[in-house]
């Protein structure tokens, strides 16, 4: 018999509609799954079991009374611990914010509650979302449900692992330069970075403000589309929020790939350091798109190879500015000192981990007098050229494709001593972040070791619906089983 935690969000909704199961039963089953397996995975920094059960009971009561319930009623959801939740610790996986309870909810959290998604816990991440392996968490590393000796990717590794391990069918992540797409690839999940501004950043703890975007994880494209629909809303509290509503992705989801013009990004497929098995799986997926009736063409993003260098100036510069707020005054850690300045410097040295300090240092340097123009301003001009590359490519294509990440999941500890090697994980994810365009990662196969491989699909600004349609066509055609399996997988012995 299929356990409730194996079902999709759509199936859980349908079964509740048919009165075959209650929200409380669904939530209890997922909490039991978490209790049984999360000691191995470490996806959750905090499981909010009591709140989740109370919310589920309230949903069941309303259903029974004929009162309205939300579009995600009774569906468990894993929330990245970078979104402010009123009265619930919100740490960014940092000692700096250990024990911090925000006095307000992020807009995304309000929308999730309105939709009656049941938050079962807050998930681990690289500290302040800086990293690609979830090993930069100040608390513990999260492990990949497909192979517990490997990383789940990052920074949203906790949400990705929670969805892959069937702790919840839905997860919320944030993507600044690949932090949803890269862990989606490494955990065999679907991860969507929407257009910049599509989802409100209010209450999202800021990292690099011109890049940060919230988005969904799921085990299927329709579930990801469902969650995106629930959180993509204009928000007066975020001045970068897009006012144009999202085209209903569900409406177009099953139209198929026929007639789509798909551009294969040459610079990604021929990229240095691309694992041949990843290239092969992506090429096979592209061939399937041709068979499904898409017109596949070769496309160039000539400035894309400069994306990662530009990103590692822009991102740390914005981060160094944003993280100036952690000064031991208004919230979070304080280490005492004789003066305010000494207190601030001691607090920041004790509260931040190595990668956070590294980014603050790079950013402060890149913004400092004498270096600003050669570093930060030049990176912003390169950013313009990358955005123009995308614009030119989308003049002739509906969707662009390439690998999401250069490799499959790597062993814990493999890249922790080499920051630059870690950064290279996001070499294919960063260009779309810089351009602000939507992109997603779809599982399209596994390598010889059974580890998942993801194809990245990129769309034009506001083009989420077409992107999801193309991904859905491919997903149906491939028909992959995305349950972690193998000797090293979560629950392998049970």
């Amino acid at each position, binding site marked *: 018999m299929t356990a409730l935690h194996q079902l999709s969000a759509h199936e859980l909704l349908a079964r509740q509609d048919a009165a075959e199961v209650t929200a409380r039963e669904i939530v209890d089953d997922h909490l039991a799954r978490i209790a049984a397996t999360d000691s191995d995975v470490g996806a959750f920094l905090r499981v909010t079991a009591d709140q989740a059960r109370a919310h589920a009971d309230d949903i069941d009561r309303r259903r029974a009374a004929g009162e309205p319930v939300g579009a995600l009623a009774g569906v468990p959801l894993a929330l990245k611990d970078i979104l402010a939740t009123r009265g619930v610790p919100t740490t960014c996986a940092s000692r700096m914010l250990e024990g911090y309870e925000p006095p*307000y909810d992020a807009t995304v959290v309000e929308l999730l509650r309105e939709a009656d998604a049941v938050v079962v816990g807050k998930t681990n991440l690289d500290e302040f979302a800086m990293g690609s392996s979830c090993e930069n968490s100040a608390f513990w590393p999260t492990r990949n449900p497909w192979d517990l000796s490997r990383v789940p990717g990052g920074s949203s590794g906790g949400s990705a692992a929670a969805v892959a391990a069937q702790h919840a069918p839905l997860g919320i992540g944030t993507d600044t330069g690949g932090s949803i797409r890269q862990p989606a690839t490494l955990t065999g999940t679907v991860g969507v970075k929407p257009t910049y501004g599509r989802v409100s950043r209010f209450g999202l703890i800021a990292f690099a403000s011109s890049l940060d975007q919230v988005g969904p994880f799921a085990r299927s494209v329709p579930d990801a589309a469902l969650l995106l629909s629930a959180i993509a809303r204009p928000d007066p509290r975020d001045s970068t929020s897009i006012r144009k509503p999202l085209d209903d992705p569900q409406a177009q989801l099953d139209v198929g790939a026929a007639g789509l013009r798909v551009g294969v990004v040459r610079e990604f497929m021929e990229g240095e350091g691309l694992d041949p098995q990843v290239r092969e799986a992506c090429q096979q997926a592209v061939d399937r798109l041709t068979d499904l009736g898409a017109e596949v063409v070769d496309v160039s993003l000539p400035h894309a190879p400069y994306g990662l260098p530009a990103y590692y100036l822009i991102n740390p510069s914005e981060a160094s500015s944003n993280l100036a707020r952690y000064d031991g*005054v208004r919230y979070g850690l304080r280490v005492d000192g004789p*003066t305010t300045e*000494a207190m601030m410097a001691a607090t920041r*040295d004790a509260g931040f981990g190595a990668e956070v300090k*590294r980014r603050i240092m790079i950013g402060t340097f890149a913004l400092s007098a004498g270096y600003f123009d050669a570093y930060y301003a030049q*990176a912003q*001009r390169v950013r313009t050229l990358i955005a123009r590359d995308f614009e030119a490519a989308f003049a002739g294509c509906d969707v662009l494709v390439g690998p999401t990440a250069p490799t499959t999941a790597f062993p814990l500890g493999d890249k922790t001593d080499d*920051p630059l090697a870690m950064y290279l994980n996001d070499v294919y994810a960063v260009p779309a972040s810089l351009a*602000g365009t939507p992109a997603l990662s779809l599982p399209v196969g596994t390598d010889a070791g059974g580890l998942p491989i993801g194809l990245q699909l990129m769309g034009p600004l506001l083009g989420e619906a077409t992107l999801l349609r193309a991904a859905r066509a491919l997903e149906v055609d491939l028909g992959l089983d995305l349950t972690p399996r193998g000797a090293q997988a979560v629950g392998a012995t049970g």
Partner: protein
Amino acid sequence: MALSEQQVRHVARLARLALSDEEVAAFRTQLAEILDYAEQVGEVATQDVPPMTHPARPANVLRDDEPVDGLAPDEALAPAPAAEDGRFRVPRIVGDESAAGPAPADDGAWTSTGEERP
């Protein structure tokens, strides 16, 4: 690019990070490597290319000027490490500067906008 220990300490001071000697030594190497990589942006011809600060359309976002409820003072102060009389409490800001290490006036590396960069 090579970074001197003095440069790393200067940047750490600007960023209000009281780094240990070990951290300074590690960052000298790591920051130099990362900056060497990032310097590739200098290979791109960008004459007449405007900088892109943001993917959002540059336009003013206006709303009606209507009062809305904000955080109550006690809610805003609740997460603070120290508060007193409805205010955030911090250690002394001015006064005995010898306790804070080198005073700004004595430190040529202090200002972020001046010419005293080491």
